[in-house]
């Protein structure tokens, strides 16, 4: 069954079509790659999926239920978590606190409970902290738990972003260029992590320019260009697809 499905999504900014009639789905248990040249609309797709933009036409289904027009925090609470292309950590908060923020939607003690510091509140805080630490441990950032996010080494900032998204125990994880700015050994580590995430039962949608990463971890790839889906298939199929080659490299000179 499709976990997260885009149906004929069109996003228009004035007269500009960012996405037109785009459909694809992320199936249970897969790592779906989303590739395309710069400006193809990959990040727009992310923004539609997470509720930042509202699609002009079409529908977004999550587990069979439409999430179109829902607020981003509601979609996140339903189990669609994301990371950002340019790292957007809460830079003055520690790594642990960053991760704890993501548990916000999974907890519900209010103002009165917090001021009175009730037993339930203390228990909930301990639980939040435990879950956050688990996520940090999973991504190997736990040694930096008390470090302020902006002081983390770059690679660990990327990992912390993923840990923060994972802390909410999402069903689908959207990764927006996680390997950007990483060296080959770091991106090899990242590939292992993505596989680990996938094995733990979370579906992954991966936007990435590093083809080695995409071809290495994705079971299926969707290629978009100018807001239109131009190809879909296994990594091998995508590599041979003439339209994909054309989108990236241009037409052969002899035509």
């Amino acid at each position, binding site marked *: 069954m499709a976990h997260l499905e885009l149906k004929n999504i069109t996003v228009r900014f004035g007269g500009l079509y960012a996405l037109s009639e785009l459909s694809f789905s992320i199936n249970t248990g897969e790592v779906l790659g989303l590739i395309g040249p710069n400006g193809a609309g990959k990040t727009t797709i992310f923004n539609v999926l997470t509720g930042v933009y509202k699609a002009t036409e079409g529908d977004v289904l999550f587990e069979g239920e439409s999430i179109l027009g829902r607020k981003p925090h509601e979609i996140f609470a339903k189990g669609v978590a994301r990371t950002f292309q340019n790292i957007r950590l809460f830079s003055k908060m520690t790594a642990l606190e960053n991760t704890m923020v993501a548990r916000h939607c999974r907890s519900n003690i209010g103002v009165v409970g917090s001021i009175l510091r009730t037993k339930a509140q203390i228990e909930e*805080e301990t639980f939040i902290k435990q879950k956050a630490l688990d996520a940090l441990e999973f991504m190997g950032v736990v040694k930096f738990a008390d470090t302020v996010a902006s002081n983390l080494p770059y690679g660990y900032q990327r990992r912390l972003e993923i840990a923060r998204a994972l802390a909410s125990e999402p069903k689908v994880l959207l990764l927006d260029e996680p390997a950007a700015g990483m060296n080959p050994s770091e991106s090899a580590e990242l590939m292992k992590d993505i596989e680990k995430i996938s094995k733990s039962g979370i579906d992954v949608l991966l936007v990435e320019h590093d083809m080695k990463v995409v071809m290495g971890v994705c079971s299926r790839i969707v290629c978009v260009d100018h807001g239109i889906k131009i190809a879909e298939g296994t990594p091998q199929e995508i590599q041979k697809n003439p339209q994909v080659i054309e989108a990236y490299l241009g037409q052969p000179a002899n035509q």
Partner: protein
Amino acid sequence: MIQEFKKIWKQYAITMLWLLGILWPLLGIHPDGTLSFRQTFTVWSYILAGTFICFIFYIINKSDNFKLLTEPIANTSQKLNNSLQSMPSWIWKSALLFGAVIYPIATGRYATDVAINVLLYVSLGLGLYVVVGLAGMLDLGHIAFYGVGAYTYAILNVKYGMGFWVCFPFAGLSACIAGCIVGYPTLKMRGDYLAIVTLGFGEIVRIILNNWMSLTNGPNGILGVKSIGILRPVMENGFTFEMFWVTKLELFYYFALGLAILTIIAVTRLGSSRIGRAWESIREDETAAELMGVNTFYYKLLAYAMGAIFAGFAGALFAARMRFVSPESFTFLESVMLLCMVVLGGMNSIPGIILGVIALIALPEVFRGLESYRMLVFGSTMVIMMLFRPSGLIAAKRKKMMETKQPEERG
């Protein structure tokens, strides 16, 4: 050392001559046209002497000879710091509380009066800390909530004869509603725009208070507000209760102290709860916070409401103490002073804000001996403060949640 001196003595000499050049027209030319030199040279020689000492210190510092002096000081302060940290927190907390309790007995009426002011502003400042420090929304009209709280109590008391304890929650409630009224339309604004809107709101409240004659009695204010009444058991002719009005300043001090302590506890706990984290995430990156499951709409409104409630409570207490309210107590200048206290003390630390409040209320009192130069000295103290400690008197410290030692940071 001599090298350092050679490097900058010319610059120093030129600066001093230049100073003399601009000082003379200011001091030497009198309104009646006569010229004099004596005063100029006296003032100039004082400045010369002062700056020369600074100059020498600067050179010693530049040539690293200063370390001989500063190192032992730094070492002892480090040791002191360590021993303070290893001490359980209840020791210094109870010491502070003890000091606060005996304060009005140990000092005089005037000092108690200043202290009450400090305590009320601690509640106000911590309310503003929730809005500015935690949620990161610049609020230039926070004093309006203080005014709403004060007027709520004054009106309910004078017009409807309701007692302090009945009105107290109402003061908080009406300030909270006012907070939501200003919060709701500004939720989509950020930074400068928000500051301007809150500034406007503060002025609107003051102008309403000034002009709604039938309700607020306009600029004349409301007179005859009753103080806090408590029921006191009396043993004469059987066991009865008697209304007892808190009129003594010392007693009032304890009420203000109670409110301040309650506010400190409430704000500290809120700050370290999931709500505080949600606020901080909004301050750091609103879009990311929304995408990480924080209902930014609700939490921004909540920040305004909470900040306003604390201000409203403080306002009710203020009205009960002064037994008089007028729009003049809630001007824009007060809002600015309040914001200064929060920024000066350290925007993100509660002890810092308390220190900031004490500094900004106590310093003008301390400088009273300087008479008309008071505000000048006060202003320059603030400028120097912000130059040397831009993050406030006590900078924010992130709470360490892990027992393990922090790893060395890598480059």
